[in-house]
């Protein structure tokens, strides 16, 4: 579903690459955590999938397509196949829950009938029945994130990208959000979630891709937030000492 072939992203020639020759593949229907410290390249990874940025070197495939080859007027079509959820929800404050979710369908030209039919269905999936007419500020943080998730999946994308979706939420609420994401994943959507939340990663036991300084440090199935076996990537041999000294 998502494949990176030796992808390098350099924002600024003077600093180290944000992503350094990364190769990995996430299959259809998979659930993968993207973990790593700030600046490790998680957000860059997500941006490249969305074609918000282009790779400096290497090829990014999304749903079998080389994104570099997608012309600018067809980028919207690519994005319709990808749902995105953010840490800060990004809801429209003056629109109701229903209108916020419906907005995603209106802008791509879905008919009123289909919107009326689909939105309540999706709100039910994320556990927000009966709150259609609330405004975002009348909802708790967890509920707002559910609205954001509903909006991200209402057009039935094949991929859901989540950028620290539980970053602003308490552990119990976070768990609820994870259940929603898991449900969406079990319905066949590929989920890639960038996170710092170790409890959640440990609880879910899904694939974990750990990035550090733009390289894949570890890629394990059914893994924990921190590695059970200490891994030292080949690149760090030798440079490890100097890296320590720099700290």
């Amino acid at each position, binding site marked *: 579903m998502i494949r990176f072939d030796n992808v390098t992203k350099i924002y600024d020639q003077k600093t180290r690459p944000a992503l350094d020759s990364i190769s990995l593949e996430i299959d259809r229907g998979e659930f993968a955590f993207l973990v790593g410290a700030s600046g490790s390249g998680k957000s860059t990874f997500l941006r490249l999938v969305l074609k918000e940025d282009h790779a400096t070197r290497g090829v990014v495939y999304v749903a079998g397509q080389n994104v570099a080859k997608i012309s*600018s007027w067809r980028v919207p079509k690519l*994005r319709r196949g990808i749902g995105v959820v953010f840490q800060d929800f*990004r809801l429209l404050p003056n629109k109701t829950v229903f209108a916020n979710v419906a907005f995603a369908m209106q*802008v*791509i*030209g879905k*008919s*009123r009938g289909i919107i009326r039919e689909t939105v309540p269905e999706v709100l039910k999936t994320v556990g927000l029945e009966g709150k259609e007419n609330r405004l975002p500020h009348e909802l708790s943080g967890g509920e707002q994130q559910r609205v954001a998730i509903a909006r991200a999946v209402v057009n039935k994308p094949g991929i859901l990208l989540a950028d620290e979706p539980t970053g602003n939420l308490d552990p119990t609420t976070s768990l609820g959000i994870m259940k929603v994401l898991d449900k969406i994943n079990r319905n066949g959507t590929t989920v890639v979630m960038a996170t710092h939340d170790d409890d959640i990663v440990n609880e879910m036991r899904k694939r974990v891709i750990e990035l550090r300084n733009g390289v894949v440090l570890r890629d394990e199935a059914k893994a924990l937030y921190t590695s059970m076996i200490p891994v030292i990537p080949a690149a760090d041999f030798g440079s490890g000492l100097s890296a320590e000294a720099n700290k």
Partner: protein
Amino acid sequence: MRVAFILGEIGGGLRRNVSMVVSVILVTFVSLTFVGTAGMLQMQINQMKGYWYDKVQVAVFLCVDTSTSPTCASGPATDEQKKNIETLLDSAAVKPYVTSWAYESQADALKHFKEQFANSPIVDSVTADQLPASFRVNMVNPEKYQIINETFSATPGVETVIDQRQLLEKLFSVMNIASLVAVGIAGLMIICAILLIATTIRLSAFSRRRETGIMRLVGASKAVIQLPFVLEGVIAAVIGAVLASGTVWAVAKFFIQDYLANQYKDTAFISANQVLILTPGLLVLGILLAGISSLLTLRKYLKV
């Protein structure tokens, strides 16, 4: 559905920055009014040219007591000299260029003078022998004025030959300058309008960045995201253009047609309805103005 959605977006956008929209309307209104005025002046010039060029004559003025020209050395024109001129006018060299000619005696000249300056105290002090008699020559082609001039300016008894067209040219050149000034002001105002539309669109895009950000993420097409902004500017500019057309029409109707045309009955003025042909031009100009400046702004501030 999408049409309804875009219309809703436009309505929201116009409501949100009413003051900016009003200023765009006013600036396009003023600038297009100047453009329209320049157009109207040009139409008036053409109208007058068409009307007067048919009527202009070449006047061959004869010598009077006070004449100083060398051809008048022998004093006022004699009957013999007059006869000579008449013969020349009917001669083979001149006749093909002349449609008709008439003699205006000093008494006729005084009569015309009195009519022309009816409201001026000067009429009471003018007598017939101060005004020159003249031959009024209508030409087949007024451009061939030189033929008359060459033939008669050296003829004894002729003081001077005057081409009335040249007097008109002076008037037209004044009107041309006025319309150039109007175009110049219009140009400045149009630059203002373009910058103001760009600023308005920028503000509008900024205040709706949340919406447009979400629209991008869920895969709205470029048209759906940008069209509301472009149309906002275009709607404001069209309103301005309509107001400008209305103003230009009102000036033509109430000032030119109802006032000037009544005051100066022997002058050809344009009618208010003739001015209406400027309207489509002003509308198109307004739309282009807003459309181009907003597209350029959006390319910079609203990446898709």
